[in-house]
């Protein structure tokens, strides 16, 4: 299987409000020590893909910092490896931005031209799942497909208006695609992951006129749906897209307190890699009480932590209480504070005795670097 991986991670993720003020959604921290992109990146590497292009656009600093040379994912290679693909100015291109997913790939056509790979897997940096793409590859070949899209059975937890809906026939061939409509026409939603023959992708992109070459799904695939063999590969496992809403982000994080989810994401035999930080193991002191929580390295806990996710280096001082919350890296919760139903970003300091909680059904975010 020779596949070139492309990860779309240019989204501003504006639905994540303050969390994406200074970072792109693919760089949003999840589960105490990871960033969203770790999942798709690790999935690719675990499936034997060793050439991966990461397409960035919106505020990429923290994403770049996280990815580095790709060393943690075994992608600092002489052959293959990781390529960061940022928008650029050139003689044939007067826009500083990628106009959409198709445009982003089109502008990096050189990578496709030079690649010896026959297939392209296009994923997103915002997806949380653990998948073996080899099975997708086999499915694609077996059906003689031109394009295969990964779909997911629609569940209550997915807001239908936020996703593309996909209608298939008995053989799983896609007969209709509707993007983000309120009405439910199918029980399959599109995850945003494409598997496509490279030569075909290049041809489709070259043959589309410039002003109709923005979105890969709507501008390139949908108009050609009748003429191409486009199939739907249904992924059965756990899958979430964290950039859809703050609630989605919160719920996804909280899902990790469920053993089945932990087992599937982390103990399936396919590891999820991330940037190492060399923190010491979490220390839980004499007067601490920790229950139903996920605690990352470097934490020092003296207070009470319930139903929460603590990222690396979080310090909870004596008498502080944290409930149903997500606390990101290096935040300090001082003595006697009470934190409830909230997301606290990195490097925040909650001073002694403060009480902070969200108004019900609306999860608040404390911005990075705030002192309260």
């Amino acid at each position: 299987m020779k596949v070139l991986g492309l990860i779309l991670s240019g989204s501003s993720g504006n639905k994540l409000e303050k969390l994406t003020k200074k970072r792109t959604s693919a760089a949003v921290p999840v589960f105490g020590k990871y960033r969203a992109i770790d999942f798709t990146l690790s999935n690719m590497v675990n499936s034997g893909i060793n050439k991966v292009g990461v397409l960035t656009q919106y505020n990429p600093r923290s994403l770049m910092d996280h990815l580095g040379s790709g060393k943690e994912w075994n992608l600092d290679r002489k052959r293959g490896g990781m390529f960061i693909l940022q928008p650029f100015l050139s003689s044939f291109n007067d826009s500083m931005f990628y106009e959409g997913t198709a445009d982003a790939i089109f502008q990096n056509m050189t990578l496709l031209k030079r690649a010896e790979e026959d297939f392209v897997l296009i994923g997103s940096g915002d997806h949380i799942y653990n998948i073996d793409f080899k099975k997708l590859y086999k499915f694609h070949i077996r059906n003689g497909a031109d394009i295969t899209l990964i779909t997911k059975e629609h569940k209550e937890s997915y807001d239908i208006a936020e996703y593309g809906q996909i209608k298939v026939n008995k053989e799983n061939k896609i007969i209709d695609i509707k993007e983000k409509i309120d009405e439910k026409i199918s029980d399959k939603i599109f995850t945003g992951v494409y598997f496509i023959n490279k030569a075909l992708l290049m041809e489709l992109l070259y043959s589309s006129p410039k002003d109709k070459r923005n979105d890969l799904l709507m501008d390139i695939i949908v108009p050609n749906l009748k003429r191409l063999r486009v199939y739907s590969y249904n992924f059965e496992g756990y899958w979430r897209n964290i950039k859809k809403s703050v609630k989605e982000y919160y719920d996804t994080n909280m899902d990790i307190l469920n053993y089945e989810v932990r087992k599937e994401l982390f103990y399936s035999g396919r590891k999820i890699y991330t940037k190492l930080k060399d923190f010491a193991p979490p220390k839980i002191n004499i007067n601490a009480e920790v229950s139903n929580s996920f605690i990352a390295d470097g934490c020092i806990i003296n207070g009470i932590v319930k139903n929460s996710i603590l990222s690396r280096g979080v310090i909870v001082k004596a008498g502080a209480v944290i409930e149903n919350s997500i606390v990101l890296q290096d935040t300090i919760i001082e003595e006697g504070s009470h934190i409830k139903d909230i997301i606290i970003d990195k490097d925040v300091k909650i001073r002694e005795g403060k009480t902070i909680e969200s108004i019900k059904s609306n999860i608040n975010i404390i911005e990075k670097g705030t002192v309260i």
Partner: protein
Amino acid sequence: MKVLALILAGGQGTRLGVITNNLAKPAVPFGGKYRIIDFAISNCVNSGINTVGVVTQYMPHQLVDHLGIGKPWDLDIKDGGLYVLPPYLSRSDTSWYEGTADAVYQNIEFIDKYKPDFVIILSGDHVYRMDYNDIIDYHIEKSADCTIACMEVPVSEANRFGIMVTDPFNKIREFQEKPKEPKGTLASLGIYVFSWDFLKKALMKDASSTESDHDFGKNIIPSILKNNSNLYAYNFEGYWRDVGTISSYLDCNLEILGPLPPLDLHDKNWKVYTQSEELPPAFISDKANVIKSFVSEGAEIYGEVENSVIFQGVIVEKGAKIKDSVIMNRVKVGKETIINKSIIASSTVVGDKCEIGLKEYKVSKINKEIYNSDITLIGFNTNIPDKTIIGKNCVIDNFVDLKELNIKNLNSGEGIINEF
């Protein structure tokens, strides 16, 4: 000024019992995710020493695997870096390293390649935090030929160390290696700074002597002292532990737990680097009760843990109670099992409703020299079936299956040791 560090990591560490039967002492797991040698290597890189040779000999597989090309310590660099130095054969009479001095002697060629001004000789067996710049500055300030780091120890323990007698200017007047009647309490920590030209000459001289054991403490130091060289003692006042015995190993592990530990592994200004498994954060369930403990990544806690170090990937089932213990990587502790004051080595499986380390203390029937505390030690990859009862001061060797042996009960002081 160029400094090269040489870490002696070939020792067996016999007093750690079955832990070091298949493992070099520097590779023994420590503190939830580390191995003992991480402290010496991290001290080097934190002190700005980027050329580090690690001398191996006894059971080096896991150690060498752990070290790799020095990546976790940022020692995968072009100029300098980390070098593993195993014993080797050559046309001259090189062979196994006969002693600590011989191990350095046989690597003269390696050291010369880097043309260092100073060589700092370290041991891979100690847990400590030290800025080597201080001792090197001291060495230069005193224009010493050799500077030995030392610490005051209790008189009762002085016979385990090299003991120094110094003048008011810290110049060493006398040196006794593991003396029966110590003349003082200033003990050598096995950390030496030498000016390289001086050390090279001393090693060459020692190598040609047929009577020498080729050991730093026994031969090199006494012989250079006799020649009126400038030897100075450097008083180290920080944290330093020789985790050489089972009880000191457990104590030292539990010492890092307190709110103000003498060795703070959480100090961001002096990080300890290691090569560890890549696992998600630790999960502590709503049924769990964890106090005064380290719980490493990948651990899943459903039971009670008190005053213990839980390593990576350990599973503690519902109703299990662990107290004053060290539980190494990937150990599984079954439901309602009680473990007290024990060391359980990696990948061991303990079934449901077992009792380990309770009962009354009894003198060991296995080896009184090694197993002389109330700590029970269970080796690597061992299987303890449901409802097994194991007393205090017991020992079970690596790769033992109690189910196969049909043993349900082990009284205090008893043990199972594999025969070779």
